[in-house]
């Protein structure tokens, strides 16, 4: 057996548990609501990085369109929260629609009167969209950089749609639901530790679920397809089907992140579908280490923490710095920070064989 502690399954699970426990303890360390809200946002970004690690790091599908699912989830949640505030009798139409001269609630908004239906749509629609979009791409054997181009183009298209459909989406201004999200009769204050823990719970469940899935044969097969889809096809696997399932799962995770985002910010605008955000998700995963879910989480956390606390001097040049970091990672650390960690652990256990190739 390989002596490197990094490859030890038990050690891996222990590292995940340790990080999750530390994250769950954050509210006991900072009781400043603003800081806590910041941390909630990092957790949500980590979740998007997990979706990228799943689809790109493990499946070899470079999706620059994770923002589609994130944004759809966010708009679904925004609509649900907005309708929680509206009154069916006295005030059935959101203000932004009135200013856009809509006289009755559009049909697509009707289902959001109900919170359970609204939430189901917020998760279900992006997941279904990723299934259909993925099926079309992978059935046609689109691969490599062409997947990146197609997902990016689709993201840009959706951005224009939400931007232009002002009466339905409030366009550039976005929707800001006046009151926090309410579920089971209680409001979740975006600045509370409850909101934070909801985010952590989502991160823990979705990450561990994904890790568990990657340890099944399904996980092994998708990684094999990342290496050589042609080989997998000649073994009898339906590569397009596997890739579609993987892509759909990543869309599901990104949609969950979108929902949490609006819970924590009480605001949704076309920025959730901006190209920069989706590319950032890929950079977070790349810097942390795309072949490790935990690496992606750490990458998202560190970069966002850096961005918030690097100080005003750095703030101006933040994008340039991020670009430099990304280039360094691509050139010298193809497996990101976790890859670095892996080789260090490998040196200590005196067995570096295969450390560069294998997670």
């Amino acid at each position, binding site marked *: *057996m*390989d002596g490197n502690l990094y490859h030890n399954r038990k050690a891996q699970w222990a590292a995940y548990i340790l990080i999750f426990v530390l994250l769950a303890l954050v509210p006991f360390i900072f009781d400043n609501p603003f800081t806590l809200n910041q941390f909630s946002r990092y957790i949500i970004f980590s979740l998007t990085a997990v979706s990228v690690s799943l689809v790109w790091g493990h499946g070899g599908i470079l999706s620059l369109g994770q923002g589609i699912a994130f944004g759809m989830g966010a708009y679904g949640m925004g609509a649900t929260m907005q309708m929680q505030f509206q009154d069916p009798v006295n005030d059935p139409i959101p203000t932004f629609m009135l200013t856009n001269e809509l006289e009755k609630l559009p049909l697509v908004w009707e289902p959001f009167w109900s919170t359970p239906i609204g939430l189901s749509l917020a998760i279900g629609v992006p997941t279904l969209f990723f299934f259909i979009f993925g099926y079309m791409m992978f059935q046609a054997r689109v691969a490599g950089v062409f997947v990146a181009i197609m997902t990016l183009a689709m993201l840009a298209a959706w951005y224009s749609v939400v931007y232009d459909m002002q009466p339905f989406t409030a366009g550039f201004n976005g929707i800001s639901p006046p009151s926090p999200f309410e579920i089971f009769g209680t409001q979740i204050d975006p600045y509370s530790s409850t909101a934070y823990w909801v985010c952590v719970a989502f991160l823990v469940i979705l990450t561990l679920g994904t890790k*568990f*899935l990657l*340890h*099944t*044969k*399904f996980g*092994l*097969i998708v*990684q*094999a397809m*990342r*290496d*050589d889809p*042609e*080989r*997998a*096809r*000649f*073994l*009898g*696997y*339906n*590569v397009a*089907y*596997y890739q579609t*399932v993987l892509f759909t799962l990543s869309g599901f995770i990104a949609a969950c992140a979108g929902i949490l985002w609006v819970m924590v910010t009480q605001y949704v605008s076309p920025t959730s579908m901006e190209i920069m955000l989706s590319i950032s998700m890929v950079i977070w995963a790349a810097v942390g280490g795309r072949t490790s879910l935990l690496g992606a989480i750490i990458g998202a956390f560190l970069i966002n923490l850096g961005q918030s606390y690097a100080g005003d001097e750095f703030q101006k040049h933040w994008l340039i710095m991020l670009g430099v970091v990304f280039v360094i990672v691509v050139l010298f650390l193809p497996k990101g920070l976790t890859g670095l960690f892996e080789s260090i652990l490998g040196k200590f256990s005196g067995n570096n*064989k*295969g450390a560069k*190739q*294998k997670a």
Partner: protein
Amino acid sequence: MAILELKEVTKTYNDFSVVKGFNLSVSKGELRCLIGPNGAGKTTSLDLITGRQKLTSGTVHFDGKNITKLLEREIAVLGVGRKFQVPAVFKELTVRENFEVSYTERIGPFQNMNPFTKKHSRKHFNEIIELAALGDRLDTVAGLLSHGETQWLEIGMVLMQKPRLLLLDEPTSGMTEQETEKTSEIFKELKGEHTLVVVEHDMSFVRSIADVISVMHQGNMLAEGALSEIEQHPKVKEVYLGTEGIN
């Protein structure tokens, strides 16, 4: 009874026929060698059988079933395994994982999400490890194997599929003499239970394994028969073997 039957198979690119009117019939349990000069259409024929390329005309039957229009994966599931000319293995996975992926009893994504499906392959797995002599390399990443080991890994992977028909494209290229010898022993063990079609250039290897040899030339069958008949065939000598024959 013929397990593989090609009838009037033709593949044309623009106006150029790579394979034209090719007929081939391989019976169950046979080990057939397919030889011929470069560009004779050997690899293309394998591509046409496995669905990698589509026929311009003609038919391919496997075990009585017409597989001419099926997809690669459908043909693979029916029991046709293929080893490629340039060894194709999953380079970032370990040898063990390569074998696990190649065990294709369950083919769908949701069946394979069951955490207990991995264990079913154990017995078959051990047999193949022994055959491929990769027992001490199981935890090595496949990208780090030597060329000969990679060839055996791919042969082992194809066997993990439990195919009834194996199509092997230059299985001994890049192997040392000892490795080639070992490979010919493996193949002799396999024939009978499996049917093998081997494309090969190494004539001493062909000599040691072949029952029947088919010689291709310019997309068509030039000659077919036992080793001695092929050696004496004047046209084969001219286009392929050279005047000295097989040595």
